[in-house]
């Protein structure tokens, strides 16, 4: 793996002001994205995955959203705190973005071709005619048949899978360094999912893309990612290489997620669930966010927030403290750092 860091996020915190008080949607999130690799951010709905990546480009509604702390540097250039004009030099040009539901993420009254051409015209100063030619090439790259005809059609004339391809063509139009894919396959059926993932993989190789992939599907993570960050209640609770996460899980929440994954053989058995629900982020618990649902909870966990333990493979759990009782999970971090 190359160690060249493309995007570094440090101590990011995002709040939303609401009538009921402020929701701390993202709390102290740090990660690094290496060139040509895929970082997967996993977690259940509402854990702050999308807010994390959207806040990097100022795409969360502000107000009520507010970035209260942290920094995000694209090759050393700070993104947070930039005005809309300055941010527009990054949006779409150096960081591309794919959204979950391509049907609602594309303008219903504008042709697919025009929507892709628009970003080319704005960022590269291409003429409209040159942009049209480039759109045909791009649609060909994402394997849309008959690009000349398809580019003149509107989103409602496309199938779901084709729309997501068009969305991908749009996001890579200006050859960005980073591609943020926010649940790109969630709205698609399984065969189309596989095709889209394959397309992303091949584009990553041909364009040298660094991808942040947001998903709640561990199958997608295993297939696509080299690095994984597991988010829970606005925090990263565990991060490491894909092998660390799958084979040496060091956080009880990750274990719960893995257990909840439907296995091949177990289709007759009932699905495992993690009992309880995530904490209220209006008033995040003083201690560990997972303590109320954790099978390994200790008295300490209720009122003391655990830091991240470990170096390359990190977990936010008191079990890894030197003074904690010896627990099988503890061996996992040690095993990772030893390897």
């Amino acid at each position, binding site marked *: 793996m190359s160690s060249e860091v493309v995007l570094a996020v440090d101590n990011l915190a995002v709040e939303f002001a609401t009538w009921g008080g402020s929701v701390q949607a993202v709390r102290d999130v740090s990660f690094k994205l290496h060139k040509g690799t895929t970082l997967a951010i996993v977690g259940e709905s509402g854990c702050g995955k999308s807010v994390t990546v959207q806040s990097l480009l100022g795409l969360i509604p502000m107000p009520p959203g507010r970035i209260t702390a942290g920094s995000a540097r694209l090759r050393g250039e700070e993104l947070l705190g930039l005005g809309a004009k300055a941010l527009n030099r990054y949006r779409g040009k150096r960081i591309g973005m794919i959204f979950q539901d391509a049907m*609602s993420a594309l303008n219903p009254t504008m042709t697919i071709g025009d929507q892709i051409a628009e970003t080319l015209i704005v960022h590269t100063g291409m003429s409209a005619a040159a942009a049209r030619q480039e759109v045909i090439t791009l649609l060909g790259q994402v394997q849309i048949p008959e690009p000349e005809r398809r580019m003149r059609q509107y989103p409602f004339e496309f199938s779901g899978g084709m729309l997501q391809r068009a969305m991908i063509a749009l996001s890579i139009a200006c050859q960005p360094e980073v591609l943020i894919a926010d649940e790109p396959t969630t709205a698609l059926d399984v065969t189309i999912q596989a095709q889209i993932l394959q397309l992303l993989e091949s584009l990553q190789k041909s364009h040298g893309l660094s991808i942040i992939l947001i998903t709640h599907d561990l199958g997608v993570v295993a297939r696509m990612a080299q690095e994984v960050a597991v988010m829970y209640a606005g925090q990263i609770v565990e991060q490491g290489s894909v092998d660390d996460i799958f084979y040496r899980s060091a956080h009880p929440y990750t274990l719960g997620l893995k257990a909840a994954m439907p296995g091949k053989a177990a289709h007759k058995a009932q699905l495992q669930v993690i009992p309880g629900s995530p904490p209220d982020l209006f008033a995040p618990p003083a201690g560990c966010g997972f303590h109320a649902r954790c099978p390994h909870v200790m008295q300490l966990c209720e009122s003391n927030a655990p830091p991240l333990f470990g170096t390359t493979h990190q977990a936010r759990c008191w079990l890894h403290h030197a003074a904690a009782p010896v627990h099988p999970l503890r061996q996992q971090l040690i095993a990772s750092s030893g390897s």
Partner: protein
Amino acid sequence: MLSYIVKRFGMGVLTIWFIATATFVAMHLVPGNPLAQEKAVNPVIRANLEKQYGLDKPVTTQYIIYITNMLHGDFGISYTQENRFVKDIISEHFPVSAELGLLSLFFATLGGVLFGAITALSRNRWPDHLIMVFVILGVSVPNFVFAALGQLLILKLNGWTGTTILPIAGWDGFGSMLMPSLVLGLSTMAYLTRLMRATMLEVAGTDYIRTARAKGLSTTRIFLSHQLRNAIMPVITVLGPAIAIITTGGFVVESVFTIPGLGRYFVQAVQQLDYTVIMGTTVFFGAFLVLMVIVADILYGFVDPRIRVEAGR
């Protein structure tokens, strides 16, 4: 697109027939008749008159005559004004009403879209609050009040400058059309402003606007090429019916500014139970409204590609 237009026109003809029939039935249900007077009329004279106007025939026969004549564009002769063809009343006075109506619709649309966009873009800041105060005034104050205020304004303006900048009343040249059409269009403008504001805000929260921002487009470009077109669609839908409100609602404004429009005849005819004039003007206004709704629908098809293709299938 063509089959869509043909279908819309077919529905339009059916609607007009319904309006004509409903008007006919309603009029014959109203007590009294155009020949009723306070003084007793000699029954012979009365019978003669009824014969001349065809009122002695059974209602069904009258209906058939009425519809057949209408198909030939003949609305008959006025019962109360001697020797005046309804056709002539309409052709003489409708152009004036139409001019007034279309001009006020132009002001209403322009103002509505413009002010609606401004309020949405400056949401919860002072331009928004200021315009919304005027919108509430525009919706709630009846237009005869605005008409009087408008005249007062012209009067003061002319007084201060010492010349006639705008005429106070009458219908002669663009200057005289300006104030009445503004007054007439005011409530529609207020309504459209509110509608435009709501749809602009709705569109601003959609996923495709977020995509447009993620593409790195400037706010102006997002507004012009993504937000406006999607936000304007509901406005186009209400334009057709708005024409009806404006052309028929013009009666008050027409009388305050002494404009020789059709509205006056429309109202007078109802008061005098002038069968032919009522039927003629109602059917004519109805047909005009139907036509305008069709025009709005066709326009809508041009703005929204989804309807265009749906109709082509």
